[in-house]
């Protein structure tokens, strides 16, 4: 069950297409999940699975944060451009 949860977490993080530190965290989660799969002892399997799930969730959250930050920057720039073109220099309206 812990393995399945870890697998879902890893797949969800991959879907978020993480970059930078998020990608590193995801890579770590993948390794931990693979270690969980190959562990012989149940206790080790559980530890690796828990660690994989936690790091995958961390990667996922960091990827969402990066995407949200980019989105905010993009929309702020867009609004500034609109304000400049439409409100400050309305004659330059396309």
């Amino acid at each position, binding site marked *: 069950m812990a393995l399945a949860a870890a697998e879902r977490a890893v797949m969800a993080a991959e879907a978020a297409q993480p970059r930078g530190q998020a990608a590193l965290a995801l890579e770590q989660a993948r390794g931990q999940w693979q270690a969980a799969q190959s562990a012989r002892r149940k206790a080790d399997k559980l530890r690796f699975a*828990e*660690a994989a799930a936690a790091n995958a*969730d961390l990667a996922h*959250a960091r990827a969402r*944060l990066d995407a*949200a930050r980019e989105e905010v920057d993009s929309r702020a720039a867009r*609004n500034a451009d609109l304000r400049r073109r439409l409100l400050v220099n*309305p004659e330059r309206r396309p």
Partner: protein
Amino acid sequence: MILRLLAVLALSLSMALPAAAQSDHERAVAALSSELQALEADPSLGPLARLERLQARQAVADAGAARRSDREHKLALAGVRIETARLAAEAELLSAQAEQLDRERDQIMIEASRLEAERARRESERLRLQAMAREEALQRELEQAEADRTAAVQQAQAETEQARKLAAARAREAELARREAELAAAIAADEITDAAPPPMRRDGNRRIYTLSGNAFASGSASLTAEAQASLRALAGQLGSGQVSIEGHTDSQGADAANQALSQRRAEAVRRVMEEAGVAPGRLKAVGRGKSQPVADNGTADGRARNRRVEIIVN
């Protein structure tokens, strides 16, 4: 003795070490718990990432209750979960900011539309005022043109009236002069007592008396005193028949002028006849102009004979 002392020390250490380890773990758990509480107390991030915060709280609780062999692992998991909760909360906060930016974009577009409408309204108003100004200018030009035209018409009417009055005054003056001349001639004629009627010829039952052109001043319809005396003599011999007085001219000058002169001369003869006592109802004066010559207009003598007034008695 020394061995015994070492044994007591080892026992003491063995009893003290778990207590120290327990204390470090509790401090670590407390630190994590404090970190999580700080996150949840944050006014902007605290209400967000509920699932991740729940997982973090669970992880901290698991770390606090972990067995000695699992403590390090559980502490690490709790740290990751707290960091995940913080990152997720920040992501949600930024997502909310992105949505706010979209609403701000909508407000910008609304404001731009309002400004555009305002600009269009001002432009429309400017064009309307411009058209109105052109219309007013045109109206003023039309009114000025109409005023100029009216003034010109009034000026022309005034000049026409002035000319008419002048002509009337001159006609009046000429009439008075003529009347004066006639009166003078009449007075002079009163002094002529032996005047004979104009020469007469017969045409069937009609008697035709001819007053020659020298009975008038040149170009005038005023009879000479001799002519008036001759006509008075004729008036006493006319009897009771109808009298037709016909004026004639030579062919020199314009037709209209000759026609008018012959008419005026016939009228002058008629007035003398009336004044001499002939009933006005018997008299008829007609101007014939140059239409009925009795001699050649090519010679001075012929033209003198053509200038005449004939008094025809039926």
